[in-house]
């Protein structure tokens, strides 16, 4: 490029997704922007005035100032809307501001550059061998589950779904997300989506195996109760990681959105469960019975067990009394 030392600034006009649509080199101040032909930068945005903005260094300290010209829509700088005749320092460090419907960024030589963004698998920070291990692990768990569910001597066709169907489904899932990335980020981030998806799958698989085993081993029934909620949380985190690769929203907004969805979903389910069953979690009792060698917790005598169960009486009586209050005499049963 010619004489980069004479380049005073770059003015970038951005798309909604943050991509630069047009880039204008500045080799002298002031610079006027608007729709009029006598402006330095002529825009075709109908929401921009004829002489919308003038950029000019201040006489006192040379800091670049933004002067708003004769305009109805003004200029949006951060949360502020500047009206006709107002001025302010040009937002520093390449922050985006808006005139009409046009998003603008001014880069000055003194601004620090953002570090280089990673591409491909590196986006997620995942190492290829970890991804490969997760993929094989998730597939292995599915195959094991299928093998356990089948009786000995089952036919080859019983293995088609976990052998072929599930990998194909996972690939399709990642392709769909990658198409999303292509649409919004203009990059087909298949490896990154694959890495995120298999990591999520393997975590969910491990939780579903280990938590009930631990619950049985130590007779900690609550671990078994919360397993679905935990795996749903991992699924939500996986969705968040995939959505981050697609949607041009800030990390915080996305995280808040997905957390809110999870919290609302959990609250609704728990409320419904409580209304129907007087319990927050769906599971009535722990039903995982692995080989007895895994049992660590001790047992009680039948009498002790029955006496412990008698503590349920107060809760049952309270509920029965509450529900027995006069109401419509509709009769239903399970």
């Amino acid at each position, binding site marked *: 490029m010619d004489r980069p030392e004479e380049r005073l600034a770059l003015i970038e006009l951005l798309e909604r997704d943050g991509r630069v649509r047009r880039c204008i080199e500045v080799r002298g101040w002031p610079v006027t922007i608007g729709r009029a032909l006598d402006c330095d930068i002529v825009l075709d945005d109908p929401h921009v005035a004829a002489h919308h903005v003038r950029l000019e260094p201040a006489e006192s300290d040379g800091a670049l100032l933004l002067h708003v010209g004769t305009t109805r829509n003004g200029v949006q700088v951060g949360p502020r809307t500047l009206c006709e005749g107002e001025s302010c320092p040009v937002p520093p460090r390449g922050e985006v501001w808006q005139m009409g419907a046009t998003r603008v960024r001014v880069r000055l030589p003194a601004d620090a550059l953002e570090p280089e963004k990673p591409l491909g698998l590196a986006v997620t920070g995942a190492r290829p061998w970890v991804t490969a291990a997760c993929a094989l692990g998730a597939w292995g768990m599915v195959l094991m589950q299928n093998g*356990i*569910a089948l*009786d*000995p*001597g089952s036919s080859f066709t019983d293995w088609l779904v976990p052998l072929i169907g599930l990998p194909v489904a996972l690939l399709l899932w990642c392709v769909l997300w990658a198409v999303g990335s292509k649409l919004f980020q203009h990059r087909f981030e298949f490896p990154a989506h694959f890495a995120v998806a298999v990591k999520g799958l393997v975590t969910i698989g491990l939780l579903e195996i280990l938590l009930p085993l631990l619950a049985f081993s130590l*007779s900690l*029934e609550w671990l078994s109760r919360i397993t679905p909620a935990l795996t749903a949380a991992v699924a939500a985190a996986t969705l968040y990681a995939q959505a981050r690769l697609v949607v041009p929203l800030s990390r915080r907004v996305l995280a808040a959105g997905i957390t809110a969805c999870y919290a609302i979903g959990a609250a609704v389910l728990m409320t419904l469960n409580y209304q*129907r*069953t*007087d*319990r927050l979690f769906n599971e*009535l*009792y*722990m*039903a*995982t*019975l*692995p*080989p*007895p*060698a895994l*049992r660590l*917790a*001790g*047992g*009680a*005598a*039948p*009498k002790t*067990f*029955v*006496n*412990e*169960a*008698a*503590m*349920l*009486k107060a*809760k*049952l*009586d309270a*509920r*029965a009394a509450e*529900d*027995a209050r006069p109401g419509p*005499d*509709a*009769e*239903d*049963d*399970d």
Partner: protein
Amino acid sequence: MPVPASVPRMPFMRLMPLLLIVLALVAGNPARAAAGAASAPAAAASKGDAPAPAASAASAPEAEEAAEPPPPLSPTGQRVYEGAKNRLVQVRTLLKAQDSQSSVGSGFLVSDEGHLITNYHVVSTYALQPQSHRLVFVTADGRQGALQLIDVDVVHDLALLKPVEPTAFAGRGFIGFRPGNLPLSRGERLYSLGNPLDVGFAVTEGSYNGLVERSFVPTIFFGGSLSPGMSGGPALDAKGRVIGVNVATRRDGEQISFLVPGSFAQALLERSRTAKPLALPAFEPITKQVMTYQDELAKTFVKLPWRSAGHPRYAIPVPREDFLRCWGRSTPPESRGLEFERSDCQMESRVYISSVFSTGQISVRHEAYDGRKLGALRFAQRYSASFRNEFFGGNNSYLTAPQCHERFVDRAGLSLRAVMCLRAHKKLKGLYDVSVLVATLDQSTAGAQGRFDGYGFSFDNAKALAEHYLDGFGWTDPKNASH
């Protein structure tokens, strides 16, 4: 985890279709009866509630008998009917608002003061929902009048009624009871009277077949046909004396019907001859009666020793078949997977409370699994799936949702996983349903799972039954304990 087809299901209150008993012989509005859900009497009654042309095979002959000129009866039958017809009534439950009938049954005069006996299930809607229903009688000669409920005996499914107008039955006399010191012999003719399907008053001949075996509540086995609408009608001997009260029939057999022994009706009459009408809804007296019944049932049950399940390793509690009936099943021979043997024991009698609710019953069940062909992992998966595949009911208008307690239990050195679930009755205060689910945990490729259910017991009895059940588990041979 999906339950593989090879794992036997252990459904809640499993009713073998062959054993379906029609307890409610009350004819009612088909739509209303169809709305009744789980309990066998209601479900079965709904079949018979259809208008005559759609009636089941068992009831069709009755319908024809009443609709067309009746086939010639034996001279005794004619005489019995002639003698009783003025003392027979149809008992109708009407919806107060629209005056249309919600169900119909039969009844008969048992005193000069106008006392009528019918089934409790004929008047249960009125007894429990008096605000929207009323009771009326219709005699064979077409006279009508209002009825009031004097007392009920829910355990034996009986109700004592009286007309609101004291002189409504003046001069009609009553049907006397056959004295208790004159026992019937098997095969003796009985004549059952009533108004089947609201078609018209009818008499059905049948025979006395003794008491129903393995029934906790004494019930007469009547070898004749009963149809919906005949509930509450009398079954008379050749001399026109009351032997029993029509109560139920079975749809899976021919001419297998049931009568409440007349002595219970007589006792109810004697007990409440001078009583005032019941305060309605009648949940309080009903609860009191179920309380007495469950106490006797629980005490009798706990006293009975368990019999052997025939398992080489475990003692598994299987009840004696004094008043429960057991059915067994095992793995089909072509099975490549988990092998099992199961036993289902259940009381066939229960206490009818309303068209959607019965109680006062016990069932005991177990499954012995052998997974040596499968290996430890596969066995654990199926064993868990079977343990998970249990239903303990949900919240409804009669019962709360279940609350459960679970932990490892060591019974005489045998390691068990046990779950005890309780539900409280909302309308029958002080009664609970108790379920105990047990799995043995000492082998990695074999085990046994059992379930006990007691419906409608006091809390103390529920505890005693649960403990009694858990105490039934153990080793068949103490040598095994060292394994």
